[in-house]
């Protein structure tokens, strides 16, 4: 197959919000995602970074079908995943799966691990009991658990083990795209490393494509091939991980990177770069530098993503 595995075009998500205060101004539309477009290639890890409220989670939920987009298309292998021609929930389950942030809320406390993993297989037409238990066993081994743990219930496992089970559940239907929603942020530091290593191993083993949502830039740098930086519902910068971390162009990306406390450096040493990135078209500025929050109830000012170096795009004010 040529072309991208997953393709998102001009995605918009708006939520109705009822007006606050005594003189509530009726229903207003909150613009959560404003025209997000990107492609995900086979076997790549693409991360969306940004702070709370930037729309990264809403984008992810739209892709797994938990949020209906207001406008725009999501295509998987050139088949639409949303809109009138969208596949059924059952069909889309084989294409895209998700690993959730909170390992404590993401497993049904009343289902044994075996049931959690076997039920989706049965649902998708695997009827042979021996095939089901084989596949469950293989999957548990792949995520570093032992098959004899399958009879147990979630409360008998630690946070890290639960996250392994969550990963096993996401992979049991053999999807090609896995959305990772803050996969390690709820875990202890020493467990984080194990899960990150596991995710990278599994990606290679099953040639998975990851779409990772994260606010932790050090994890993003470690795992990603490409990075999207989102700010108030828009992509403000897009590029390979080296572009984003070594030559960030947008002031917001720079602020984000400078804000990370690093072991071994005091914050005084984190000088913020202000020099313009070489190659930016002259005479065009940034619409927002990310220092003051725009109004989320109106559509954003016109701007466009401009590719100024191969694969490296940044949001600039429109050309005159």
């Amino acid at each position: 197959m040529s072309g991208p595995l997953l393709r998102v075009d001009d995605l918009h998500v708006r939520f109705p919000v009822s007006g606050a205060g005594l003189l509530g101004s009726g229903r207003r539309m909150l613009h959560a995602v404003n025209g997000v477009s990107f492609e995900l290639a086979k076997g790549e890890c693409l991360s969306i970074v940004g702070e709370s409220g930037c729309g990264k989670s809403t984008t992810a939920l739209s892709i797994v079908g938990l949020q209906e987009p207001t406008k725009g298309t999501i295509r998987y292998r050139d088949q639409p995943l949303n809109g009138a021609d969208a596949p059924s929930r059952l069909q889309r389950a084989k294409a895209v799966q998700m690993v959730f942030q909170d390992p404590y809320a993401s497993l049904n406390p009343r289902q044994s691990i075996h049931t959690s993993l076997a039920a989706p297989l049965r649902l998708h037409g695997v009827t042979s009991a021996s095939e089901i238990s084989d596949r469950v066993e293989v999957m548990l081994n792949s995520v570093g658990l032992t098959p004899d743990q399958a009879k147990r219930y979630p409360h008998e496992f630690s946070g890290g083990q639960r996250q392994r089970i969550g990963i096993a559940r996401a992979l049991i239907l053999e999807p090609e795209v896995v959305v990772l929603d803050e996969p390690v942020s709820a875990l202890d530091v020493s467990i984080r490393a194990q899960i990150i290593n596991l995710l990278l191993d599994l990606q290679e083993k099953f040639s998975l494509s990851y779409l990772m949502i994260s606010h932790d830039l050090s994890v993003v740098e470690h795992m990603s091939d490409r990075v999207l930086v989102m700010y108030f519902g828009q992509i403000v910068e897009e590029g390979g991980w080296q572009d984003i971390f070594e030559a960030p162009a947008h002031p917001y990306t720079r602020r984000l990177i400078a804000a990370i406390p690093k072991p071994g450096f005091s914050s005084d040493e984190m000088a913020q770069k202000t020099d313009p990135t070489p190659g930016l078209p002259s005479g065009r500025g940034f619409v927002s530098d990310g220092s003051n929050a725009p109004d989320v109830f109106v559509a954003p000012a016109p701007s466009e993503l401009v590719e100024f170096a191969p694969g490296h795009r940044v949001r600039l004010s429109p050309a005159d």
Partner: protein
Amino acid sequence: MTEALLDVRDLRLGVVQKRATLHAILKGVSFQILPGEAYGLVGESGSGKSVTSLAIMGLLGKPLSVTGGALLFKGQNLLDLSKREMRRLRGNRIAMIFQEPMTALNPLATVGRQIAEMYMLHQGKGRQEAQELAIEALASVRVPNPDRRAKDYPHQMSGGLRQRVMIAMALACDPDLLIADEPTTALDVTVQAEVLRLIKDLCAERGTAVLFISHDLGVIASICQRVGVMYAGCLVEENETKALFQDPRHEYTRGLLGALPQLGSRSQNGRRRLVDIDSIIADRSKLTETSFIVPRRPQGGQA
């Protein structure tokens, strides 16, 4: 050598029922904080870092209770103080800020009033004067439009602003020691950076000592002069921040540092496999048998 402001000596605490210790949580923790020094306690969940701070504040709830050791604050053992004496000390000489300011603020009072109350309670100021001091305090934590913001209720503020209000309240009486328990964990990175900078600047300006508790080594590194690493109720390593990060001695500290993806390291050295702490540590239960406590430099404190 300077007299320590807070001297935690062999602190032990656990789950106590009917005078029997059912489960030890702190197994003899000792560290000292000098006046004006920022000291960090880092550890994973369950390491005992947060209960340490609660013990210092005298806020341990049942069934937890101190079973041994001493907590000397300016030479006085906090464990000997009556509840009333402890109350007078709390908020006044020792103040604390928490991870989620929303739970520590009263949702039914304006933030200005809540700060003003600190001045009225601990310094006997009149209502009018306390109000003015509260607005000054808000200005000092860099809240824009402090006189207008003082009339806001906590829910009208963002998480970052609420944490600033907490800091203003905590520093209202110029305490000698500020205990900060994961104060920036719930915040976005850019807001976190601002709040950390604020704590650092204000405490340096006023000579307030800080006990900073976090699971995030990077946060600790950006604010503390010395760090103690806790594991399973023991202080396994203590050193000056730079030295600790450059030359970790304890197995666990090394594992912890190796387990973190570090910004910039991929572009310098390529993608290395993160250290799986369980693969380098043969037996976690033996971790607390050794500890590396590097003595403070004789001239006292300035890193």
